[in-house]
């Protein structure tokens, strides 16, 4: 099944990516090929088979809700492209 140009544009929007004209064309072709390849899994009989949710049998891991020393706030802010007074700075979102 071929992926349409419109689907590629829609998926890019969901993934917060802008695509150029040539990228739209490239990913339309690539995704059609990759998903065709992925479709091989549909020839496997999985009646009464449950999904593998995690790679090992660990499920919920609980711990006590205790206050612990975490990474230093200044150290975490050092990589922020824009910051102000100990906070991450973003453009205005409310008019």
């Amino acid at each position, binding site marked *: 099944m071929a*992926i349409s140009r419109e*689907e*590629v544009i829609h*998926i*890019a929007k*969901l*993934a*917060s*990516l*802008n*695509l150029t004209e040539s*990228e739209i064309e*490239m*990913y339309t072709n*690539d*995704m059609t*090929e*990759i*998903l065709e*390849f*992925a*479709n*091989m*899994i*549909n*020839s*496997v009989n*999985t009646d009464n*088979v*449950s*999904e*593998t*949710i*995690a*790679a*090992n049998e*660990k499920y919920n*891991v609980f*711990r006590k809700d205790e206050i612990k020393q975490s*990474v*230093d706030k200044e*150290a*975490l802010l*050092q*990589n*922020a*492209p*824009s910051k102000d007074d100990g906070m*991450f700075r*973003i*453009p*205005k*979102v409310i008019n």
Partner: protein
Amino acid sequence: MMELYELTAHELMDKLASGEITSEEVTKSYFNRIKEKDGVVKAYVSTLEESALEKARKVDADRKAGKPVSKYAGIPIGIKDNMCITGTRTTCSSKMLENFVAPYDATVIENLNKEELVYLGKLNMDEFAMGSSTENSAFFTTKNPWDLERVPGGSSGGSAAAVAADMAPWALGSDTGGSIRQPASLCGVVGLKPTYGLVSRYGLVAFASSLDQIGPITKDVTDSALLLNLIAGHDEKDSTSMEIEKKDYTKALVNDVKGMKIGLPKEYIGEGVNEEVKASVLAAAKKFEELGATVEECSFDVGKYATSVYYVIADAEASSNLGRFDGIRYGYRSEKFENLKDIYRNSRSEGFGPEVKRRIMVGTYVLSSGYYDAYYKKAQKVRTVINNAYNELFKKYDILLTPVSPTTAFKFGEKSDNPIEMYMADICTVPVNIGGVPGISVPSGLDSKGLPISIQLIGKAFDEETILRAAYTYEQNTNFRENRPTFKEGGNN
């Protein structure tokens, strides 16, 4: 006389312990080697000479003063550039993280710090570990030390090339679908992907969280066990890491496979695998039989679906994991924006390379409304079928023997135009990640072009001992370790 950089880590440990050499001498030897060879090989994204020498001198002083020091203290190591070392750049070979300075240590790094290992630098990789040739690095391509016109494999191509070229005695890599074992194979070194949950992933930049594992890339099997000893263990910061008793993997280094039952899945010595690779695997099977193991052909038919399962699950997880790169808290931020959504979209569009975007697109698609059941849920079910097939095989066999890579090192550009063709480079390694079981890549000779070939030994979950034992026995009874890279330019055909 042998140069220090030619030695294995365990040989260096012996010489450090006896006082024959100092860590400063060893560390300098590696930086000299890096200066001599890395201009051509280009394995390192960044080197840490100043801090390395400082640590080496401290360890030397402690040893000299008779203070108790670890046997690992002062041994240099290279780290794939997707693991965090406090205060150093961790780029994932991406423009997105080009200037990211890690504010904390990965748990594996904390473990190495306790033993006072010396960091030589951070090693090149495919961007966000997505690729099989290191051609997807946003910075530069790493060359295969055996033939400079060929790829070192990937995604841990920098780690494998550095160890092969004697620019590090050993290195850490990460493996999501073969990213330790395949480059180790293409560069003629030993690569181990541990069982999922054996090594903490905390501080490893996430690609596909249900598949990623950190593991050693080393010159021999003994070093693989020694490095695994340091990184294995439960970590409360990674809820998927298992609470199992700490083991000494060097106890598995026993030169004996008598009575070991080895399965040889016929699907991996058939179509799609290069004849010379196939011959090497069959010769290894014969060798194991000579050494007293029983080798029996078996079938792993569902393995052929593993790569399809992989590209659904890995891309789905990647699209989710990489959602965090939004240009706000860290990473690249576009200069062009008027509002918040512009920052997200423009930063991601300018910061990610083509293969990363491709995987985010596929991952977003298979998780999107209307396709979730047909792709993601179905892939998780087929994953169960593959796991069941492994369980059945491991009722009969102690380990499985397969190739690592269907071909030896390929040329730059040979597969980079066709994503599917590149994905096929991982057909022998991907099933191991899907099953969450351990696999080791061990050199098994050279092809007619003089390029390394390796065999892969696959074990039961949390039974690294048996594959290490088989790998060690194979290594001790063959002389493939003696083959050295030639740094030739423009190989034969």
